[in-house]
């Protein structure tokens, strides 16, 4: 008993560890988190997969054994007690019972028998030598059965669990006949000792199938690597469906599957969705996840060194990689996932400065969530890797995004995976194109145009009498200097200059001047750019001026973008993939049977009370004695009830 409690405690503690320490993560994550020493120590203890570690399974096995022994040891006694009516109880023992009373009344035997049976008791009669008759009655023997049910249930559930556990796998790994594969290989090249045949009785793994493709294996995590489980059938994904509610939350994930039996070649079509798995050959197929399956993409590549040139068309596949040559340098373009829906919370967060009345009104109101979930359209992520293997990660959105009444194209960049994306908002012209911005950007980057630009800007300043004629040359030089400095390093470069060269007390004023110059000159930059391209002059209104100011911000941010090309996604054909989880668990029904036994056992143990009643019918009087398996107030009540009943009977007779 003590031993069992001790084991249970260890089991509980181990389970807690398993919930606190994330299970089955890639090993490098653990090494990073705990340091080498603890990483190795925890690995030896099997803490990365506690519930399947040898010692955990061993404790479970011990518990099954000790519970079984408990049943075998106590069982016969319990059974004997269940059967017995204790009809040979002596006067002394009857008198000694807590609920026992000598009553000055006589009952004849049929009358007493009726009384007891009328209360649903089973009765056994015993005639005694002194002529008296003892009626021993009882009810609720099933209470004892509860003990059997509950304890057998434990054993049954554990056996079911062990059937579905990975015990054979563990043994295979111990003997070396099975070794998890740790390399990232194409499935067909995984060696035999990392493959499990379709005859395997119990497994649980998953596979990702793109639309139009098939799979006949699943992958199972095992320690530091994975195993390949072969299936008795081939799964082909025809189409994956995803539906959304009006507020952007997902509503339905479903896969149209074609199952082809490997032996007979027969095919059948099914649709599975979350909560509605399909069972084939004892293998249950679940809709587990979804993603991109490698979609053909079309992109426009804007060369950022010659941004005025028309973009070139590039084709690629999401999740694929391809070489890219820009300005004589070799790069590798590695596409990530294409995401067609990007649901973002664009609602304003509830501010804390609402009045109490407003808040009270808010909590009373019945409404759907106000999180303004909005689909902001498709995005593609990719990495651009240079010859030295250095890469930056980009995330480009395809659809124009409206912010404060103007339209932008949004692109994110980061140099490390752990960092958040820095977003670039490129303003769009009236054709919803970034071409105008690129034209402006090209002109900004082109020193050959600066003389023309500064001439225009200075002339305008003179005209508006913003500067005196004496200042003309100096102003013109400033325009040129500010433009070239900005073109080289954006706002950052100007700030750097101020920090390095200008005394602190004058920085503010000079910064203001630079900004003013830039804001004035950008109009002329655009005019020159338009003229060079043979396009009409840039309209002079608030909307178009805002475009120019936004362009300055984007041009500055492009410094950090740090790529030779800007890849604008122009089209795609979505190919989705469905993540299928497959399980074969022969122990499931065993566990359910155990669960049923457990519930029956608990009900019998707690809600069936065993009561025994003895009526000793003697010549002059009667003795009533009662016991119950639990001394509680209920027995007091029952005893009083019985006494009252007997007295009434006697009164009537």
């Amino acid at each position, binding site marked *: 008993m003590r031993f069992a409690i001790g084991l249970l405690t260890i089991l509980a503690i181990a389970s807690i560890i398993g919930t606190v320490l994330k299970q089955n993560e890639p090993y490098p994550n653990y090494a990073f988190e705990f340091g080498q020493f603890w990483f190795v120590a925890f690995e030896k203890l099997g803490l990365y997969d506690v519930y399947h570690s040898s010692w955990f399974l061993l404790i479970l096995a011990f518990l099954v054994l000790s519970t079984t022994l408990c049943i075998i040891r106590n069982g016969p006694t319990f059974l004997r007690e269940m059967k017995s009516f204790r009809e040979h109880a002596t006067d002394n023992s009857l008198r000694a019972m807590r609920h026992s009373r000598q009553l000055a009344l006589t009952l004849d035997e049929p009358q007493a028998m009726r009384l007891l049976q009328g209360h649903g008791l089973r009765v056994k009669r015993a005639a005694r030598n002194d002529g008296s008759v003892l009626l021993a009655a009882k*009810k609720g023997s099933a209470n004892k059965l509860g003990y059997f049910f509950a304890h057998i249930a434990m054993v049954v559930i554990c056996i079911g669990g062990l059937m579905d556990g990975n015990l054979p796998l563990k043994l295979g790994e111990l003997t070396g006949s099975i070794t998890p594969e740790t390399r990232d290989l194409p499935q067909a090249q995984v060696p035999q000792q990392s493959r499990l045949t379709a005859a395997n009785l119990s497994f649980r793994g998953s596979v990702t199938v793109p639309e139009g493709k098939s799979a006949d294996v699943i992958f199972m995590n095992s320690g530091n690597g994975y195993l390949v489980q072969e299936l008795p059938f081939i799964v082909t994904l025809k189409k994956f469906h995803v539906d959304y509610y009006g507020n952007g939350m*997902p509503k339905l994930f479903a896969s149209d599957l074609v199952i082809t039996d490997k032996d007979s070649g027969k095919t059948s079509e099914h649709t599975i969705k979350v909560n509605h798995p399909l069972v084939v050959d004892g293998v249950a197929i679940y809709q587990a996840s979804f993603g991109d399956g490698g979609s053909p993409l079309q992109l426009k590549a804007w060369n950022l060194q010659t941004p005025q040139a028309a973009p070139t068309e590039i084709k690629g596949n999401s999740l694929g990689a391809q070489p890219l040559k820009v300005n004589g340098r070799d790069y590798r373009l590695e596409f990530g996932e294409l995401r067609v829906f990007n649901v973002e919370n664009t609602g304003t967060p509830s501010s804390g400065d609402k009045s109490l009345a407003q808040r009270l009104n808010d909590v009373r109101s019945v409404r759907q969530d106000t999180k303004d979930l909005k689909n902001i359209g498709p995005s593609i992520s990719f990495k651009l890797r240079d010859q030295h293997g250095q890469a930056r990660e980009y995330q480009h959105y395809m659809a124009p995004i409206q912010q404060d009444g103007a339209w932008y194209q949004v692109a994110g960049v980061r140099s490390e995976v752990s960092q958040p994306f820095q977003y670039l908002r490129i303003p769009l012209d009236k054709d919803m194109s970034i071409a105008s911005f690129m034209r402006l950007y090209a002109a900004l980057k082109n020193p050959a145009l600066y003389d023309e630009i500064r001439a225009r800007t200075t002339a305008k300043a003179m005209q508006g009498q913003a500067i005196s004629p004496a200042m003309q040359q100096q102003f013109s030089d400033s325009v040129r200097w500010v433009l070239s400095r900005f073109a080289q390093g954006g706002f950052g470069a100007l700030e750097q200059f101020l920090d390095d060269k200008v005394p602190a007390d004058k920085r503010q004023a000079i910064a203001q001047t630079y900004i003013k110059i830039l804001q004035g000159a950008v109009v002329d930059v655009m005019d020159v750019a338009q003229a060079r391209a043979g396009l009409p002059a840039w309209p002079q209104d608030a909307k178009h001026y805002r475009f120019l100011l936004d362009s300055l911000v984007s041009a500055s941010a492009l410094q950090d973008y740090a790529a030779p090309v800007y890849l604008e996604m122009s089209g795609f054909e979505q190919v989705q993939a469905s993540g299928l989880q497959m399980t074969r668990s022969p122990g499931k029904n065993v566990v359910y049977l155990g*669960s049923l036994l457990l519930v029956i056992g608990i009900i019998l143990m707690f809600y069936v009370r065993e009561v025994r009643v003895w009526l000793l019918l003697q010549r002059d009087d009667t003795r009533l004695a009662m016991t119950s398996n639990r001394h509680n107030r209920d027995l007091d009540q029952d005893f009083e009830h019985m006494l009252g009943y007997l007295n009434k009977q006697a009164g009537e007779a």
Partner: protein
Amino acid sequence: MEMVLQQPLYKRLAAGDWLYALLIIVAAGYSFSLYGSAMDYYEQLILVGSSIGLVALGWFWPSWRWFFPLAGAVSLLAIQLYDHNLARAAESFGLKYLLSSQSSFMWMCTLFFLATVLYWAGTLSRAGLLMRMGRGLTWAAAVFALAGLFTRWYESYLIAPDVGRIPVSNLYEVFILFCLITALMYLYYEAKFAVRQVGAFVLLVISAAVGFILWYTFERQAHEIQPLIPALQSWWMKIHVPANFVGYGAFAMSAMIGVAQLLIRRGILASRLPSAEILDEVMYKAIAVGFLFFTIATILGAMWAADAWGGYWSWDPKETWALIVWLNYAAWLHMRLVKGWRGEPLAWWAVVGLLVTSFAFIGVNMFLSGLHSYGTL
């Protein structure tokens, strides 16, 4: 547990019992005539099952016979006022201040707080009247809670037909369910064992939950109705979640009774509270009920997981903590029944049990990630 030696059930049923049963059957039949065509096989089964359950509950506990129809009537009145138009929530006076689900819940919160105060005042001053008033307010709060849940169910369909769902699918809704179930279980035991002074303790844990609900509503706008994500679209949810909360409610109540018992055994408030022995028994009965329902809920959860997650047991943190809670109370009951433990150690254990249970209930959602992450803070 009832008296064992009595007439069989069918002989003990009086006219009132049959009348109540008739009411439930007629109501169920009427619902079926209205919505039967939209129900699938499982939902028809649930309708039959819940009708049987409601009749049984009414026969077992007489107070249920007026409570349930009253909550239903209040909710039907709210539905009448809505008149198929969600915007009426802000226009109709009755809905805005009394009967819309959010107003009902706010009334529930207020009434539970007041009931707590009254129970304490009554217990400390030995005033039976105050405690009776406390009980009355607890009943009223429970009516608002149940009616509010029914109304919210209806409101979710008004938002959009595909949003409609039973309101037991996020942390906000289950907290209301928790308050409701704990209060009802307490009211049952109060009547049965005449232990109304314990109300002061049990209402404390309900008040704590109410405090959480208010914080969650005001700070996080958690009361907004969201549609069900695919993983939760299952009829299993309708039985798994309520069964679980009978367990949680019972465990919470037993812990508070444990606290009262420990105080009495130390002579604190001893003259104002029932005897420690009676509390010991109520505590045991609460844990026995909780254990049964928690076991059933965990099994139902396993069966649901087998449909949704690809296995009846995945060692997901919530599952694992459910197992720990289960082992904890299994050991508790074992010690009482087999080893004959009574009194103080078990009272302490029940109090500690509440910590374990609370962690399984809220802590897992707050601190651990896993498949059960439906309610985050």
